[in-house]
């Protein structure tokens, strides 16, 4: 069984939502990312998304965009990120999902990425600017190499698309909470519950909610209605605000621990 499935099944058996966190690989540098991953897992992250920095990330808000630029300023590459995953695998079994944009995937090679991601120990892949009906080759390569291709459902997705995306998504279905880009928001949308319910009706694959979830309170709110909670920008800004590596790791760790407590105590 794939690590993502295991982690989500474990959370389900503990009658709680899973906590999924996002960090940009290489921000501020790759050795910090390497240090962060086991720390975040120890603090309660069930799954970690590793952002592949891209020059033109149209799905990201300012926080993640700027963090990508920082990583790119150090010329962080996909090969280095896969090396990082390989190194992390010697110390941690936390499920890792690579998240990025198509052009970096194409430059690396779809088939080659699926193979190398699998070999390095990555468990899943999200390509933010590719709708499910495009790049059948990538889906096929992922399936062949046991890399779970996670697909996104948006509030604008039609019922027909929702059915097809949910059927094709592996690991979990990434439910985008709002129309728009990533980034912290003060309030969660009022119709989130219906959106999650709409996806739940058509699939048994776990449904995890991301975009805009930034505080422990919001995480707890989402944990009551979904199988997983995804937090990205809020964590990235903690890391970016820290003056040095040690405090970045400390601050990220304590924030994830807070989120984890909130998620674990959300359902009575």
């Amino acid at each position, binding site marked *: 069984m794939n690590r993502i499935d295991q982690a989500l099944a474990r959370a389900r058996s503990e009658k709680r939502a899973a906590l999924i966190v996002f960090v940009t690989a290489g921000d501020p540098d790759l050795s910090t990312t390497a240090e962060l991953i086991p720390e975040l897992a120890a603090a309660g992250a069930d799954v970690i998304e590793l952002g592949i920095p*891209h*020059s*033109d*990330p*149209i*799905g990201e*808000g*300012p926080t993640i*965009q700027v963090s990508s*630029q920082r990583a*790119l300023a150090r010329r962080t*590459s*996909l090969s280095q990120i896969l090396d990082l995953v390989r190194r992390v695998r010697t110390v941690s079994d936390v499920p890792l999902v690579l998240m990025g*944009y*198509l*052009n*970096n*995937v*194409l*430059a*690396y090679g779809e088939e080659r990425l699926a193979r190398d991601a699998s070999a390095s120990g990555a468990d899943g892949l999200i390509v*933010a*600017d*590719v*709708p*499910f*009906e*495009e790049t*059948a*080759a990538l889906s*096929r390569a992922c*399936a062949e190499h046991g890399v779970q291709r996670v*697909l*996104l*459902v*948006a*509030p*604008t*997705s*039609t019922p*027909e*698309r929702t*059915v*097809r*995306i949910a*059927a*094709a998504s592996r690991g979990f279905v990434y439910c*985008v909470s709002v*129309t*728009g*880009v990533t980034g912290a928001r003060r309030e969660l949308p009022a119709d989130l519950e219906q959106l999650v319910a709409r996806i739940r009706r058509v699939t048994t694959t776990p449904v995890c909610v991301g975009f805009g979830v930034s505080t422990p309170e919001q995480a707890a709110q989402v944990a009551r209605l979904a199988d997983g909670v995804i937090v990205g920008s809020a964590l990235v800004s903690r890391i970016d605000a820290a003056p040095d590596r040690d405090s970045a790791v400390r601050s990220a760790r304590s924030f994830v621990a807070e989120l984890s407590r909130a998620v674990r105590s959300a359902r009575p």
Partner: protein
Amino acid sequence: MTLVKICGLTSLDDAELALAAGADAVGLNFVPGTPRAIDVANGRAISAALAGRAVRIAVFRDAPRDEVERIAREAGVDVVQLHGSESPEYAASLPFPVLKVIPADSRALDTAARYPEADILLDSPSGGGSGSGWNFALALPLVEAGRRVWIAGGLGPENVADAVKLASPYGVDASSALESAPGRKDPARMRAFVAAVRAATPARERPDLRGYFGRFGGRYVPETLVPAVEELAATWEALRRDPAFWNELAEERRAYIGRPTPLYFAARASQELGVRVWLKREDLAHTGAHKINNAVGQALIAKRMGKRRVIAETGAGQHGVAAATACARYGLDCEVFMGEEDTRRQALNVFRMELLGAKVHAVTSGSRTLKDAMNEALRDWATNVRSTYYLIGSVAGPHPYPMLVRDLQAVIGEEARAQILAEEGRLPDVLIACVGGGSNAMGLFAPFHGDTSVRMIGVEAGGEGVGSGRHGASLTVGTPGALHGSYSYVLQDDEGQIFEAHSISAGLDYPGVGPEHSFFKDSGRAEYVPVTDAEALDAFVWLSRMEGIIPAFESAHAIAELRRRAARLERGAIVVLNLSGRGDKDAMEAKRLLGERLAR
């Protein structure tokens, strides 16, 4: 363009022959016990070889749903065709686009309505393979209802042209009529079939059903935006066949834009260069550039779609001004994203937009130029997608924009073609136009696409030289990649990170290009060359003095190539050059760059 699907391929050899004949789509038959049925392994081999070169469609009849999904996945196809009595629920539950086969009878419209998401394949009511043909006009109500309709049953090289003219279908499908023996495709008959379809449809009906021009194009946007581009594509499919829309647009073009623009014989330039130079005067269109053609067309579409808020991105500001103008004309709210660097270089256009009532957002992310303005516009669109119309300014972006903008700009080439025939009594030898995203060039080129004697030359921003790393020559030195919603040539590094482009012309410093140009480049239909900043600046001065016409920096690139190319053309050759815009906006920048040089 009506697509051609050749069905019932049983071998890799036949598949290659079908592609060589020009097929856009192929059918692989997985219905056990039928004459052309193949197994999954064979389907997979054929499918893998055709990846990215044709739409691969797997054919099933009343097979268990899970088996359909399994086989389609294992074979690696793009579309699933359902040939039996599969229910609408069954069709909707498949994680693949569906092509539903229904009989072409009087109930077809109602039957199709039960499968709202599927493409429809109308087949002979007597069942496939009869070779008898049917009343193809029965497809028309469905086509007019905006459905994507394929026709099949009794189609061969002899009757397919008539069928296409009668039904104007999205695609045609043939199998047994193209065989020399059962299960063996006949190359000559396949070629004749494709040629008959092509001849019956105008060339600019491309791209294919998924928005691809060959391997370029597509729809690479976050899921949030997919329903919006699908809605726009459906709207445009319906509108482009709607005479009322074109009549309204024609009146706006005449009364408001000032069309047709003249095709002007540049006598002194011709004398000097030894070729007959005709300038298509888009600089004389309202707002001073070709951009208004597209802006007015899309603003009318936005109005019809009930969207009150329009957003646009702009580089040099000409598209921003055009969008602001069209929105003022139709009473729509307009917001324009422009790189901070460009707001400085094109301060006059910022003022014009504001004067026209638009709000200008100076974009401070990334390189602060056009590519970042487009990123920001896409982010805004994702956020406000339900209320907002995104008015893209070039033949770039996700499907259907490259096609939509081309269709609206094709008025340039349509007029030029008629004008040159009236003036010279024959077609031109050469077309020249500058290419940033590529809308003015595509507008000129598209109506000449089928005129194979006419050479097309696109001129890119060579900046400080293509070896300098500071240029905008995506087609000359770029490599294929995905940017801003489509797959096309882009300027990028080995990791797939996009470069910042550079040009003296803010309208050409874009690191991508419209996908149809990439298709033209690879197919050899058009050639693309770079011109440097310095050459463009010389041409800017040259045309001003030679003809009393100050060209935009963009158009000056085309002029520079004209001067260079003329020496290699036969004396008296006819050249049509698209003068895409006037140079007022660049006058201050030119003054700064030319400095003392003009004081003589």
